[in-house]
């Protein structure tokens, strides 16, 4: 979330990826950083350790949503 906010602050389109288990923390950080509405995409938890094939499937699943957020915020 902090990385997404840093990119957004730099004036670039940004989307943060947050897993379901970390959604409350992501929301907390976004509020604390003063950008509560920074674009984010929620993905299933966990992502780390799921393997390349599952990671690829996940990327395909969220691809359109990420592009949409980058275009429209």
């Amino acid at each position: 979330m902090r990385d997404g906010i840093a990119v957004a602050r730099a004036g670039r389109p940004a989307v943060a990826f947050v897993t379901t288990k970390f959604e409350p923390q992501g929301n907390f950080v976004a509020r604390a950083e003063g950008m509560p509405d920074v674009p984010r995409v929620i993905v299933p938890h966990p992502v780390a350790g799921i393997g390349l094939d599952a990671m690829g499937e996940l990327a395909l699943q969220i691809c359109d949503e990420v592009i949409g957020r980058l275009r429209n915020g």
Partner: protein
Amino acid sequence: MLSAADADAALEQLHANGCTDGLPVIIPTAERVTRMILASGLDADIELGEMGPGYGIATVEKVAVAAVMAGCTPDHISVVVAAVRAICQPEFDLTEMQCTTHCTTPMVIVNGPAREAGGFASGFGLMGPGHRANASVGRALRLTMINIGGARAGESDMAIHGSPAKFGFCFAEDEQASPFPPLHTTLGYSESQSVVTVLGVESPHSVLFTGDSNEAVFADALLQTIAEAIANPGSNNSHLGGNGAVAVVLNPEHAAILHSVGFDRSAIQRELAARALTPRALMIRLNPKMLVGKEDMIPAVRDSSKILVLVAGAPGLYTMVMPTWCAGPHGNVTVHAEVELDQFCELPTPN
């Protein structure tokens, strides 16, 4: 400012608002907080630093609230203030520490006259329980991290298991029993100064060793035993390239074994860093995806000066090793701050 019908209702309100560590607290009434601020000798609105991840400003007043809640006496507030100043230094990476899934927590070591002024324990059971100053000051620091820093389990503090040490981890070095100069003098302070030294660590890991002083073979074996504990292949230290730190709390008997054959603090640090190695082949077999480091023998601590060596505890079989998280932007740096005892104000008799 909260209001409640009575103390029981106030306690329930504090629990409900997530303002406690789960245990009962002393209700921080305006009178108690005012007394604690007065004891600090500092103005209430002095800003000691910013505490992430909520980015609250740690004023003396807010820190005094935490000290009251934790059960501190007026003799403790200067140490709490110094500990807050220390962990708010940017190189401590407080925000990252508070948010990580690791179980890291600040370990506060008290040196100098503040040890006796505050009644800090450095012998039997110094890491708890049973010593008011150690428990209260460690707890007060945690309460600042919760209420000023905004760390709450599962919401902003994402530690997977947490740690009993996160309730509070504070003790004094046993300067009298130590054969080495007091820890704070190695950081540039004089013996007459009071200092808190803080490192983010895991809970203590026990290291068993028995031997006699005056025989080099025992010193060598003791160093190797401690080094093997530091080089735990499951630790972050072993996995993350050796860029973090480690704390080693020698009991006075173990310290005497090393000192008797000529080891000083820096020699112990160098020996432990050189010996705390794990074969790369083992690390690759165990957990290849997390491994950082190219050597055939992976160091747990690459920079020997990042091994914090001090003396505390009762004489006996055990030394304590505290591994670290290692993953903050600054790689788990030791921070320190002077305890300003001369600011203490005389307190009026309570009503």
